[in-house]
């Protein structure tokens, strides 16, 4: 049975029709987790509003009764950002699914937050436009969730993240006030609140409308696939391409375990014996793409590529990408479970970090396959494990935490695009000191003084960090080095 205050529920029933208030366990069950299924909780109630006015009323009531609120889009997030609060309300924004307007002159589209990422590009395709950020979940994930997580994708290096492609948003604050942030002008008065909201993981307000910037579809696009004997050579090739002044639309690397898994799954034509492959997509004008393909091919060979293939037609280009785009499910086929890590590192550290990951994997007796947004340094090690084996998930989580610490030590970050959520809350204590965390809390307080939006996520309390640091490694030394550890 749900645990919410009866008086609160009675008031909710006055603002929402009963079929949009889900209270029974069977109804609430589908919402118990997001894409990070290791973390589950049944929400007190699931609410399915479809007007901004009702969202305002819900947040006003939640404020009055001090009920926690977790907003949810499609629930495809990978860090537990939409994991429900057991004493709270799960606010599903899925019914806000309309494209409101398209402005061909300014090349923008105003959409509701529940519109799927790919649906935006589909809606504007007739005008030769598209929405650039393309997280791998783009057929399912919603733009509201993309804003909350500052979602990326394979084209970020050239076209930016969500923060670069959203021009304004309407948000409802805890308590029910409406706030317009950003704007369709190319800059706006006051502080850049939009920048604070994008990637804020549902901690500051509920997004009820988003205006995105659209781009003209490039006239031409070509994909190259090259294979290497070593990941270091592949990483060096990435640096050479960029040093040449070329910014590829996509630049992705996969290591051997990922190559083999993808090849077994979709037969993308990848060489199974290569230590690494590099997929490179070049887009732009016809002349530009031709010139760039020739230059990149030469550079790849100079950097020791054993093979360079240029996709001859659209179907071959799609096939090259199919392996990368299916890398996660491909790994899912060869292992009962896998756990995706999301660190970012300065690219020049790739060799060292991959070697470090291999060492750690050996220590933890787990296998790791690596896929890498090589252009922007965002590394996704996939740890293979079997949740059915006692202790294996815990070992996987510990390995994941160590990999993230390795990324921070290499000058990188614990999350490039998946967010902190519940998953990486302890690693925030590694990334930031007490001062930064205090500043985050002060910022949060401006928008949500009572801490009711998505409590317990994204930014840890100082006491949680004190506890975490007390049990953890300091300066590379374990607290009690004399004790054996397994």
């Amino acid at each position, binding site marked *: 049975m749900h645990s919410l205050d009866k008086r609160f529920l009675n008031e909710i029933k006055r603002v929402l029709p009963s079929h949009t208030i889900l209270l029974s366990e069977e109804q609430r069950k589908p919402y118990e987790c997001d894409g990070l299924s290791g973390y589950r909780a049944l929400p007190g109630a699931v609410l399915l509003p479809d007007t901004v006015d009702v969202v305002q009323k819900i947040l006003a009531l939640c404020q009055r009764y001090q009920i926690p609120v977790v907003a949810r889009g499609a629930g495809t997030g990978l860090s537990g950002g939409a994991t429900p609060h057991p004493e709270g309300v799960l606010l599903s924004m899925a019914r806000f699914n309309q494209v409101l307007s398209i402005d061909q002159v300014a090349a923008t589209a105003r959409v509701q937050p529940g519109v799927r990422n790919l649906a935006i590009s589909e809606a504007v395709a007739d005008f030769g436009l598209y929405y650039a950020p393309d997280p791998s979940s783009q057929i399912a994930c919603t733009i509201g969730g993309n804003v909350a997580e500052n979602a990326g994708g394979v084209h970020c290096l050239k076209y930016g993240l969500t923060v670069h492609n959203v021009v304004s948003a309407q948000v409802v604050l805890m308590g029910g*006030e409406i706030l317009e*942030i950003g704007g*369709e*002008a*190319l800059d706006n008065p006051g502080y850049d609140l939009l920048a604070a909201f994008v990637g804020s993981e549902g901690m500051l307000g509920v997004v009820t409308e988003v205006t995105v910037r659209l781009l003209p579809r490039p006239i031409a696009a070509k994909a190259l696939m090259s294979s290497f004997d070593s990941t270091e050579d592949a990483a060096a090739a990435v640096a050479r391409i960029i040093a040449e002044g070329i910014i590829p639309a996509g630049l992705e690397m996969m290591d051997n375990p990922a190559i083999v898994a993808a090849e077994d799954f979709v037969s993308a034509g990848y060489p199974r014996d290569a230590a690494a492959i590099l997929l490179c997509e070049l887009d732009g004008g016809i002349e530009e793409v031709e010139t760039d393909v020739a230059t990149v091919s030469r550079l790849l060979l100079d950097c020791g590529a054993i093979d360079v293939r240029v996709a001859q037609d659209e179907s071959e280009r799609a096939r090259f990408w199919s392996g990368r785009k299916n890398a996660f499910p491909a790994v899912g086929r060869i292992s009962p479970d896998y756990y995706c890590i999301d660190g970012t590192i*300065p690219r020049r550290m790739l060799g060292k970090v991959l070697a470090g990951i291999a060492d750690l994997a050996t220590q933890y007796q787990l296998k790791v396959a690596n896929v890498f947004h090589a252009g922007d340094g965002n590394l996704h090690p996939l740890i293979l494990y079997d949740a059915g084996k006692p202790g294996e998930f815990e070992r996987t989580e510990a390995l994941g935490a160590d990999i993230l610490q390795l990324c921070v*030590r290499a000058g990188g970050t614990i999350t490039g695009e998946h967010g902190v959520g519940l998953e990486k809350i302890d690693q925030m204590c590694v990334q930031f000191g007490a001062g*930064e965390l205090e500043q985050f809390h002060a910022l949060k307080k401006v928008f949500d003084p009572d801490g009711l939006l998505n409590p317990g996520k994204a930014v840890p309390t100082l006491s949680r960090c004190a506890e975490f640091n007390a049990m953890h490694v300091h300066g*590379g030394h374990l607290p009690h080095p004399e004790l054996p550890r397994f």
Partner: protein
Amino acid sequence: MADTFRTLSCHGFDSRLQVSDFTQTLAETVREASASGDPLCIQGGNTKKFLGREPVGKPCFMSGYAGVTNYEPTELVITAKAGTTLMAIEATLAEAGQMLPFEPPGFGVDATIGGTIACGLSGPARPYRGAARDLVLGITCINGNGQILKFGGQVMKNVAGYDVSRLMVGAMGTLGIMTEISLKVLPTPKQTKTLVFECSSSAGLKKMTSLFARSIPVTASAWHDDFLRIRLSGVKDSVDAAAAELGGEFDPDGDQFWQKLKEHRLDFFNGPGSLWRLSLKPKNEVLPLTDPYLIEWGGGLYWVKTSRPPSDLIKIAASAGGYITRFNGGDRTENLSGLGDVGMRLNQQLKKGFDPQNILNPGRLFA
């Protein structure tokens, strides 16, 4: 000041926050100011002192804290101390064939990167290559409590914590004193060509706006004094193909024109009256202005010279869904326009959240 680095242990594990003596001393100054309540006026090259509301407080000089601290061209990231001049950064980047994509104005040779980011101004390339806020990857700053804080980093993708680095852009130093900044940079295009068309503002504007939805390598556009100029940048073949498609005349002085526009050295900017800036959503219809104006950013930005009170301009901007700023000259006591009540309240609270004693550039952005 010599930089001797020491390690703070507060960061746990072994991610060491290296803090220079300059930054330590500055943090101490801020803590003293916070205790006494005496405001500080953060000053880089002092080239944009005309901007925003009147500066007040004891000057806090940043120009001595200069130098590029990290630059690896193939990572597309540069990190520099806040007092590094814009010119020095641009020269360093040019050596590796790279540039600051947002083409910031300096308004003087002493302009620093700290001041540039604090003011958040972007040049002619803004609609096509992004704004200052789009390129900031990380900062070290001192907040109003005198705490030395580090947000973001030197990597392109980073979603750990709120995006405080971007919040600092355009905040005019009111949320913190930035001491070090990391920016994304891009390769300088191999070829640049400016086309010029003689036309009315209406025809010029329509041509500018028509480019947003077309796959053409435009990197600047401006209409003024019966001439529209469009800059194309990229590889030679693409630029030539686009130039052939667009028509117009080749402007051999194009590069100079964009430089003068960026730095406000065109004759237009020397005319009588205050300089107003109208920022709005690009539209096909020219705003009904009676004073001299210049349009850039594909129709997203109007510069207006006038000695008249701004009430008409405010109305015109609002009806076009934009906002106006007094950019240079005249009465600087007016408060920010264009923020609603909720927005204004949150802006004020945010300031308080970063600078509770209101000592960092107080009142420079809003009262």
